[in-house]
């Protein structure tokens, strides 16, 4: 892109605003997490007057944070990977084939996103319990049930987004791969997926975060041993008190690995067609 003379300035201002907007709550979080509870409750100050690391020790005792964290990590990761896998195949079919039922499928998938979750909570719960009784695999209050649920929650948008990315990859590339002797699946793996890596990574992150943050279903479909972070964090708000400093400390602690994961993934976000696949 040609750089106009004002562009660096605009970049500075625009990104500066976004940084401030993003950072302010994070700073409040960080500074509150190293204050004693009384200080947090008694009015805001940017810099802690009394510095303490106690909240970071207390968070593990107030709620079983480590277990919640492990549950969330397992459930979200498996759900995200599975969701992207299923979505890649479905999106490839929609992007590259015209087949009867294609429209019905895409519209139905999309329309599931329009039903308020609150309503199919109870029916889904009943299906899980009954299905569990029939097939003998416990779905209620198990990680498996949660994984299946979350994988499906992110599926519709994953498919739609991937169709968008796949559509922007020239069909000529598929053709070239097929001329080289690949079948359609070969073309998918050799050409389309590599070319769509940024999109796939974006979708992977989306699917992960969908599972990571979901509150409503997790609150009903988990028990003590399978509870996820999204609901578990509410444990810092007890009947007696809201442990603000601990909420903030716990939020920071559990976000560190996720942000680290983003950091690792982000180089895939910015490669792709620009790497020279199209010529």
């Amino acid at each position, binding site marked *: 892109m040609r750089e106009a003379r004002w562009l660096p300035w605009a970049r500075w201002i625009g990104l500066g605003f976004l940084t401030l907007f993003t950072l302010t709550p994070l700073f409040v979080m960080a500074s509150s997490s190293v204050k004693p509870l*009384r200080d947090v409750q008694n009015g805001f100050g940017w810099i802690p007057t009394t510095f303490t690391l106690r909240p970071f020790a207390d968070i593990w005792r107030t709620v079983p944070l480590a277990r919640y964290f492990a549950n969330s990590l397992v459930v979200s990761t498996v759900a995200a990977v599975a969701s992207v896998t299923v979505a890649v195949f479905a999106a490839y079919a929609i992007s590259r084939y015209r087949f009867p039922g294609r429209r019905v499928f895409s519209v139905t998938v999309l329309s599931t996103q329009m039903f308020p979750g609150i309503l199919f909570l109870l029916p889904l719960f*009943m299906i899980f319990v009954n299905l569990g009784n029939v097939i003998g695999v416990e779905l*209620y209050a198990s990680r498996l049930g949660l994984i299946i649920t979350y994988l499906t929650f992110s599926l519709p948008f994953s498919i739609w987004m991937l169709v968008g990315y796949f559509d922007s990859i020239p069909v000529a590339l598929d053709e070239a791969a097929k001329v080289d002797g690949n079948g359609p699946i070969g073309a998918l793996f050799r050409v389309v997926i590599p070319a769509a890596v940024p999109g796939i990574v974006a979708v992977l992150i989306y699917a992960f975060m969908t599972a990571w943050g979901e509150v409503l279903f997790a609150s009903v479909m988990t028990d003590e041993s399978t509870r996820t972070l999204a609901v578990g964090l509410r444990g810092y*708000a*007890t009947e007696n*008190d809201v442990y603000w400093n601990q909420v903030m400390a716990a939020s920071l602690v559990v976000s560190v690995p996720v942000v680290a994961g983003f950091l690792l993934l982000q180089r895939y976000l910015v490669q792709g067609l620009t790497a020279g696949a199209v010529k």
Partner: protein
Amino acid sequence: MLAAAVACGGGDGGDAGGSAAPRTLTYWASNQGTSLDNDKQVLQPELDKFEKQTGIKVNVEVVPWADLLNRILAATTSGKGPDVVNIGNTWSASLQATGAFVPFDDALLGQLGGRDRFLGPSLAATGAQGKPPAAVPIYGMTYGLYYNKKMFAEAGIGEPPATWDELIAAGKKLTKDGTWGLAVEGASVSENSHHAFIFGQQHGADPFDASGKPQFDTPQAVAGIKQYLDLMAVHKIVNPSNAEYSNGTEAVQDFVNRKAAMLMWQSAAASFKAGGMTEDEYGLAPIPLPDPSSGGKQVNGMVAGINLAIFNFTENQDAALRFVKFMTSPEEQKVLNKAYGSLPTVKDAYDDPAFQTPTIKTFQEILANTAAPLPQVPEESQYETLVGTAMNQMWADAANGKPITDDYVKSKLTQANQQVQPGS
């Protein structure tokens, strides 16, 4: 992955799964202590004691309040859940209507030592009148007026207020330089509905008529709620900021942090202690009663508390009943209510010196004599939700300086009343 999921999902045993060992129970406890972990620490030794006595193992899960009702609903719908569960006593009639709980008829109550062992008001809050209770009370609570002794002494007030006029006068003296007379939880639906009920009763209001029809907007109810709101809107002894307090702890913290000198609350001793407030710093008095000649009821508290219920899909009803019996035994009532700062719900537990402190005695007298249970009708949860929500808005308007008139209160309550959807 599958195996792991199965292993952890099936590990809780004793539920309605069928194949589980018959001598295991699953128990959902509510969060009564300072944290979920604290609850476990309180309960686990007692459950171990029970196992030692009976050989029945109890797997307890402390369910946070935010999830408890949803979890119970899901269990009711699907027939899969715990054997025994704690419920908020105001849910009793609504949950009773689902038919999901084992009714405690006279025979079952007899096994627990009979109806008369229980505190009357607490037992009255276990389901619709004339029907066998859907649950039995285990933790008793009610409302009282906490006051900060030191702040009272500094303001030259010797005694806690006994009438509303005295309370307002004291509040005005105490309201200065960033401290306020009284703290309220103005955006908490449940606190608001409880106070709407108490203040309404003092003016003779009943949320439901004798046939169970909702009548939220009677002139008596309007007068009651207006009296409550006027503490902020007219008398200015409540910090307008209290209108946004929603999580059920902020008013308590204002009291602990000396931002407010009075608090109308259920037993909050644990919170005070956690906040570093010693027992000689505060006192407890009954919430003022109305002038007996005014025609209102002599009610200054609602019967709050926790009930214990048995799901009727349990395959271990005998074991479950033994567990209920254990939890309502004098010894356990003493241990648990002492730990939680609540009141025993059985009369034979009160001989313990722990329940002879002035605070507990005051609460006990209120609960026994001048507390009334919220209406035990299936639509009660709608009353709490609709009237509580309407009051959130009224507090918000009062805090923003909007005049709170009778017509205004009535219109909000009428709107709430119209949204009631009949249960059957």
